[in-house]
């Protein structure tokens, strides 16, 4: 087999060409490839999973509508994340303008607090909550970089901000998260001692 391995980018381009020719099977495949990634980012920006799912759906519809305007110069992932994040940001902005408070929401929060006060929840859950509370601009950069593990330059393209700004925002987000999770991280580290002990002391 001499055939070179198809990279992620190549797969995206191949699917996108098929979609431009009206291939719905390719579109379905594309949805399967990206729905989880988008949901992981957008779901952490909006409060309810239902809303997030609507936004993800809307993102794919936009992709379909504007399929002909995709020029194969950037990564497809950059394009779709840009669309999705813009839609999510619009949603957040809309909500801030109306500022509605849902009674069910408040009760839900109360219940969560109660549980948290009793049983210390696991570290990933605490981190999830902390990410949700990050300021918007740090959150998007942090999620794209550390959760989706995209390279810095792609994050910069998606958010349409300079590379240096992305780096500083990610750094800042990590610092904020560490500050918030400090007590829990320390107990976590104490359990797995190997990371704490320097080589010289062993």
């Amino acid at each position, binding site marked *: 087999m001499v055939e070179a391995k198809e990279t992620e980018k190549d797969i995206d381009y191949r699917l996108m060409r098929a979609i431009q020719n009206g291939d*719905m099977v390719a*579109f*379905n495949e594309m*949805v*399967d490839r990206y*729905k*989880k990634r988008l*949901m*992981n980012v957008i*779901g*952490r920006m909006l409060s309810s*999973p239902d809303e*997030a*799912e609507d936004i*993800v*759906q809307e993102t*794919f*519809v936009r992709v*379909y*509508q504007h399929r002909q305007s995709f020029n194969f110069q950037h990564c497809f992932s950059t394009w779709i994340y840009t669309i999705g994040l813009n839609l999510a940001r619009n949603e957040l902005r809309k909500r801030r303008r109306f500022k509605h408070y849902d009674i069910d929401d408040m009760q839900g929060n109360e219940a969560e607090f109660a549980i948290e006060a009793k049983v210390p929840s696991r*570290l*990933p859950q605490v*981190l*999830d909550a902390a990410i949700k509370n990050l300021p918007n601009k740090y959150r998007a950069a942090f999620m794209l970089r*550390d*959760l989706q*593990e995209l390279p*810095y330059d792609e994050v910069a393209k998606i958010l349409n901000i300079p590379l240096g700004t992305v*780096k500083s925002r*990610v*750094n800042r987000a*990590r*610092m904020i*998260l*560490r500050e918030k*999770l*400090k007590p829990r*991280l*320390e107990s*976590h*580290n104490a359990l*797995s001692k190997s*990371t*704490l002990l*320097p*080589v*010289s002391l062993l």
Partner: protein
Amino acid sequence: MRCRKVRSYLSAYCSDELGGRRKLAISEHLATCAECRREEADYRSLAKTARQLSAINIAEDFNTRLLDRVARERFAETRSKAYLPRKAPVVRWTVVAPAVVTACLVFAFIMVGLQTVLDDYSPGIASVANDSYLTAQPMNNPNMTNSMQKDWSLASQMSRANRLDRMSQRIVNRIRTTSMAPTSGLFNVSARANQPAPWNQTYYRVRPVVRIYQAPDIPKGEETAY
């Protein structure tokens, strides 16, 4: 390097994003400073936890619902490509009416003028009608959007021209069939197209051009000789 500076680079160091010299300086510092080492451990477990964060569940029927929606989108697209109106055409009579009225008035004035000229020469009317035609000047159509305006393809130009041709034919026929008594004064002529105008059609200001030929000077009594 001092602790303060080391700490500003620490998270990047833990995610392995630093270049050679800086990385070396930090690892040297970490070997000697317990405080910074503790912080390093924090960042490492933070990065690890972030990678392990559970995926947010997505509904089972997500794909089906999405594809349904896209199918509807596709349908709408093919409809608009076939130039079928999506909704009932909205004809703004406030825009159309003045054009029609001016056209009629201009026509009427010309015909009145014609009447006075042709009063004595009734055979002349036939030759007028045969050679008359309409000129059309496109007007702004408020119902027309930008994307429609771009449609200057030959096909659409031709269809517009055809349409105008048909309308002028109808007007001319009307003139021919109307018995125009030499004594009649002001009269109205108008034509309506067979099918309603598509909503993406331009509006035209229509002016009739009437060619007048001098009929041979024949006294009234000898008309029957023709």
